[in-house]
């Protein structure tokens, strides 16, 4: 995999918080780390000190037999109880701030997990896209998270906590992105063979850029530009590609696979697995199971020329 795919990506750890939700959780995490470190140090120091100080000496008589001490035992229960009570109230406050009940509110984006890609639909527009999910900066967004087959899980560490996508129910997540950038994430619930290559890319844009992107995405697919692409388009339509994939503005209207209307404008393909270029596309169309074993794309036995025309067509779907 070429390294430059990840060069301009913002940090993807939970400490690189880029949303108020993630910042709140990071704050709680830091408090927890301080308390936990203090307790661990106490135990480690006591264990070491006692082991060294009270090691058995030669010919030692049996030490004083102590069976307990009520006061000490009360402290042993009381202090941890006070600590966990404190953290209980801290976590309730954070939970209510990060994930208030979304009852009655309309989602800004509906994201559906499939084996193994993300489908994103933007209500109020005709936009539907896959895997590289564009979101505006500075607005409190409500994401609706659904699943089409098995359980998946949406997680972009820099933007806050994760949320499962469960077939048969709708889950919701609030996110307010602080600054533009590309945020990496991944499916975090085991979902079968290609769970590893179910990466997430959130492209956060300033509102004007986002509006521009949304406009371009809403348009129907571009017509093929040259003869090769035209033959690719014809092949795409007459083969069964359209049973699973949608290319808006054409007869291809499948919904089982990713929407390809503006496939050529995406930087990655196969849900973050490979760079979207003609060589990789070529390889993929030749033998999908070799590139991404288990993927639901069947192997079509295309002639080499046909694959080249298909590749050209798909790349022109900017």
């Amino acid at each position, binding site marked *: 995999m070429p390294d430059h795919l990840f060069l301009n990506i913002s940090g993807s750890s939970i400490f690189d918080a880029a949303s108020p939700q993630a910042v709140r959780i990071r704050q709680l995490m830091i408090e927890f780390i301080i308390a936990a470190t203090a307790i661990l140090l106490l135990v480690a120091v006591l264990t070491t000190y006692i*082991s060294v100080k009270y090691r058995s000496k030669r010919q030692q008589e049996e030490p004083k037999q102590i069976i307990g001490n009520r006061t000490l035992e009360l402290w042993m229960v009381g202090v941890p109880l006070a600590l966990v009570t404190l953290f209980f109230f801290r976590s309730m406050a954070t939970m209510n701030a990060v994930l208030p009940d979304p009852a009655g509110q309309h989602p800004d984006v509906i994201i559906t997990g499939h084996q193994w890609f993300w489908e994103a639909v933007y209500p109020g527009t005709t936009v539907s896209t896959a895997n590289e999910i564009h979101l505006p900066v500075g607005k409190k967004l409500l994401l609706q998270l659904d699943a089409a087959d098995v359980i998946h899980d949406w997680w972009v560490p820099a933007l806050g906590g994760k949320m499962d996508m469960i077939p048969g129910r709708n889950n919701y997540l609030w996110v307010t992105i602080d600054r533009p950038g590309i945020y990496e994430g991944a499916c975090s619930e085991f979902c079968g063979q290609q769970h590893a290559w179910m990466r997430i890319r959130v492209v956060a844009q300033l509102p004007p850029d986002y509006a521009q992107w949304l406009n371009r995405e809403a348009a129907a697919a571009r017509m093929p530009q040259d003869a090769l692409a035209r033959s690719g388009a014809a092949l795409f339509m007459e083969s069964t590609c359209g049973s699973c994939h949608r290319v808006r503005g054409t007869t291809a209207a499948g919904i089982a696979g990713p929407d390809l209307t503006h496939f050529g404008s995406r930087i990655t393909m196969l849900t973050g697995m490979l760079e979207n270029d003609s060589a990789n596309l070529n390889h993929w169309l030749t033998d999908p199971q070799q590139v991404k074993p288990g993927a639901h794309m069947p192997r079509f036995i295309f002639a080499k020329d046909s694959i080249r025309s298909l590749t050209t067509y798909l790349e022109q779907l900017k």
Partner: protein
Amino acid sequence: MTDINLVPEPQESLPDLSVSNDQGILQWISSVDHKQIGILYLWLSVLFLVVAGSEILLVRLQLAIPNNHLLTPEVYNQLFTMHGTTMIFFVAMPAIFGFTTYFVPLMIGANDMAFPRLNAFSFWTTFFGGSLLYFSFIAGGAPDAGWFNYAPLNQYNYSSSPGIDYYCAGLLFAGIGTVTASVNFVVTILYYRVPSMSLKIMPLFVWMILINSFLVLAAFPSLNAALAMLLLDRQLHAHFFSAVGGGSAILWQHLFWLFGHPEVYIVILPIFGIFSEVFPVFSRKPIFGYSMVVGSGIAIALLAFGVWVHHMFATGLGNTVNGFFAASSLLIGVPTGVKIFNWLATMHGGAIRFSVSMLFAIAFLIEFTIGGLSGISFAIVPIDWQLTDTYYVVAHLHFVFIGGTLFGLLSGLFYWFPKMSGRVPDLRLSKWFFWLFVAGFNITFLVQHALGAMGMPRRVYTYPDLPGWGILNLISTIGAFLMAAAVGLLVYILIKALKKGVIATDDPWDANTLEWTTTSPPGLKNFDRIIPVKSARPFRDYKRPADADWKTNPADSITAKPNSHGK
């Protein structure tokens, strides 16, 4: 009753760890002696430890570098699923049941379990359960949906190999063995103690087994029901867990974790029992706060059934439900945590002897604290939202299962090995094993905390070359091989000790409880006569009659009558 002697039962030879008994291997297969069955459980555990360990070494090799192609995802998913399932059900449980079956009768002064034939039945159903699970490899593919086997990935549409059917059948079999064994433990403990051993002076290991057996009896029905429902889904097209047919995917999680979280305590409470024997013996002091150790064990068992949703905080159940289970999960950390201080206070002021058993016990105090504290971070819901299902969880659960359960089992092994085999393992090599294993363990799992926080999900067959991911995974893989080398050394130490170890005395550690009053190894009939039991440390009372516990602390012994005087 007519004596039908179809089954060759041992007549005189000692049931030590070798197969050279008067009836050879047939005696082991047909034995109903609790000591032999205990040893069978332990060997079963070692066998599966090697198998499940090899599986994970392949997994770690695959993860050693980014974008690796050593294993296909299909094979990888089977390997990690089998690793987890095997380690829980066929390594940790049989090892615990092995020590329990062997030592509970000895510690309470009984000559066998309440139901010896049921005891054999329990072992053999567990054995066949494990065999059935592994038969899946040659029957078309092992289970591949993880040890917690979430719906609907466990449905036929998403996993059409017979692996998950074998998972259900194998675990049902093993579950029957586990439940019957626990009934046997409860009856044995309640009815076969020497008459003077009241519950108030019962050894803490026996106490923890008693509590644990009730935990098993309450938790396993939930798993067994879920497995039966899943088999119906897969074989008869029921749809308990399939949303498409009107079922509920999340129902599986409730049923599984209602068993699964108590299960975590099922594999740690007996370990607390082992440590509550080891710390006093090697500190030459009584346990600090006997009643507190028992009480916190009971508290853990009760709370264990009210915490399962902390495995499901990211499923979107809402802040009210999550808040309730956050409270209970934080609360259960308290009785678990205080035990660490019970053991530290037991060591304090003692005369500590650094046997290998005690080394594992001391290392446990620190490793288990790490695992316990990282566990608390999952009870704090917002932190759970970030860290659940990442490598941070993998680190946490291994600090609990290895730093807790396995360290306890190894501590128990080095503590009781002379009693079971009549031989002493090589001390120098055993210490090498200890340091090698502890080093390998920490190298493997400490870095995984960081990997999780850096965004690496668990259960991925490979990963992109993001900054830091490659090197941390490589370190983890190196640590795993160090642990494997240590386990190899352990097997060598044990075999060497069995073949030509120094002969062990009957009471090598100057211990407190009844099992050490027998010969090493104990005869076929455990006891011909039993020393008086008047306190929690009957053997020490016997050895030091002048300052016996029941004289110095009458309040804590059964002789505490209004007219008796302590010193």
